[in-house]
């Protein structure tokens, strides 16, 4: 089970304030589906314009990333270019 | 409004052009003579990107009228190298990585040459004050000052 940390706003809006949860997923696409099943609408909200840190590495576009058994998945805003 | 005809010398060559009375020397160099090496960064004499020599004096070409060039001598960045031989400053700017984006570089080179032509051994402080009218936003000036110092050493050795 991967440990997922949602953005504060989304946790409050769609997950009843629950910010951290355990999700069974082998990759990011499965993770989105799983989250969407649990909290309808969440998948769409997390598909575009968010970055994700998986085990500390930031992915501006995580769509294809795989997720390990004990991975920590952290949602972040995309990093602006300066 | 009738244009004025101006006969002048640019980088040692006789040149003629037509210009409006209120056209700046910078605009005439760039638009009438195709010498786009001199840049406009501000149009008010605050950035030095348009630096040229006018009758042997370092000036901002954005603060001179094109008509004032009549009968006078203008030197620009395009005339700094001697054929395919770079001026020592041009070479040391490259060697010392004294440019990043490069937009201010022509102005710095023209200004630095004017300095070394009159003072072959300026101190760091003198270099910094002489070049205070040339803005660079990329380098923090460190490598520019070093490039001028290095060129000065080389030019003194050659002299």
């Amino acid at each position, binding site marked *: 089970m991967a440990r997922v940390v949602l953005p504060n706003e989304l946790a409050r809006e769609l997950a009843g304030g629950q910010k951290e949860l355990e999700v069974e997923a082998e990759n990011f696409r499965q993770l989105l589906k799983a989250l969407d099943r649990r909290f309808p609408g969440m998948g769409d909200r997390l598909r575009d314009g968010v970055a994700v840190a998986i085990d500390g590495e930031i992915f501006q576009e995580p769509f294809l990333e795989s997720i390990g058994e004990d991975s920590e998945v952290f949602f972040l805003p995309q990093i602006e270019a300066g | 409004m009738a244009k004025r005809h101006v006969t002048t010398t640019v980088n040692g060559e006789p040149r003629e052009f037509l210009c409006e009375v209120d056209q700046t020397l910078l605009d005439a160099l760039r638009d009438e003579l195709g010498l786009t090496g001199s840049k406009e960064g501000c149009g008010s004499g605050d950035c*030095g990107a348009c630096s040229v020599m006018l009758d042997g004096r370092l000036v901002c070409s954005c*603060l001179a*009228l094109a*008509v004032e060039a009549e009968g006078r001598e203008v030197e620009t960045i395009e005339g700094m190298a001697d054929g395919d031989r770079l001026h020592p400053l041009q070479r040391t700017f490259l060697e010392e990585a004294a440019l990043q984006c490069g937009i201010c570089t022509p102005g710095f080179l023209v200004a630095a040459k004017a300095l070394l032509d009159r003072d072959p051994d300026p101190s760091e402080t003198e270099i910094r*004050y*002489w070049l*205070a*009218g040339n803005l660079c936003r990329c380098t923090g000036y460190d490598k520019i000052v070093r490039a001028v110092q290095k060129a000065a050493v080389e030019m003194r050795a050659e002299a």
Partner: protein
Amino acid sequence: MRSIQYEAPATVDEAVARLAEAGDKARPLAGGTDLIVQMRSRLISPEVIVDVKNIPELLQVSEEGGGFRVGAAVPGAVLGENEAVVAMWPGVVEAFELIGSTQIQGRASLGGNLCNGSPAADSTPAMIAAGVTCEIAGPNGRREAPVEDLVTAPGETSLGRGELVVSFFLPPRPARTGDAYLRFIPRTEMDIAVVGVGVCVTLDDGGTCTGARVGLGAVAPRPLLVPAAADALVGTRLDDGAMANLAAAASAACNPIDDKRGTKTYRIKVAGVLARRAAGIASERARSN
């Protein structure tokens, strides 16, 4: 469409005639470092530009009566290379050379700096302190006027229609006299003065101040001659008390504004600080003269 004429007469008389004829629509062009910026930003739209740089008189520096006559269009870089003028009136030359960058120095003139009418012009307080006068040519002939009488308000001068400043007379320097100019700017270069102070002092053999002039810039609608500041020095040995009185008098003479370059409070305080520092330099120079 706007139309502009450019003329570059070879004599003062021609220039004056042209300026008189066109009146407000004409502008003399010396170094152009203010004029061209103002045209470009469309603050002014002159119809006639009279380039005065083909008139030899305006480009000359010559000795006269123990002092110097400096053409109104002489660039800062040229005056700065004149060792005799620098030796006699270092404060005036320093002030002139503080205007803008090296590039600006290749063009900017004393006449332009004065007649642009800026309260913050660097060379003006220094010339006021040194007792410099200007020669003005006009349709009715020539006249002399002290520099402090020229600027009347921001951008305005006492010059009449067709009048042109031709030259400046830097008087012979009395014995044991020294001048200095200091300005405050936020950076080390390239700014307009937030405060400018010119000081000239004359000492007797014993080191007592027998004469002084203090000019202030950027602290009022026009550059000022401040007799009260001079009075604070005259008759003293320029001790700390006198210097404090000078600072207080300089500050008291200020009538500044708050603007993007500094606050009123700041200008008033720093005018005093700089007056003191400039008087220190001037008196050093006076002692060594």
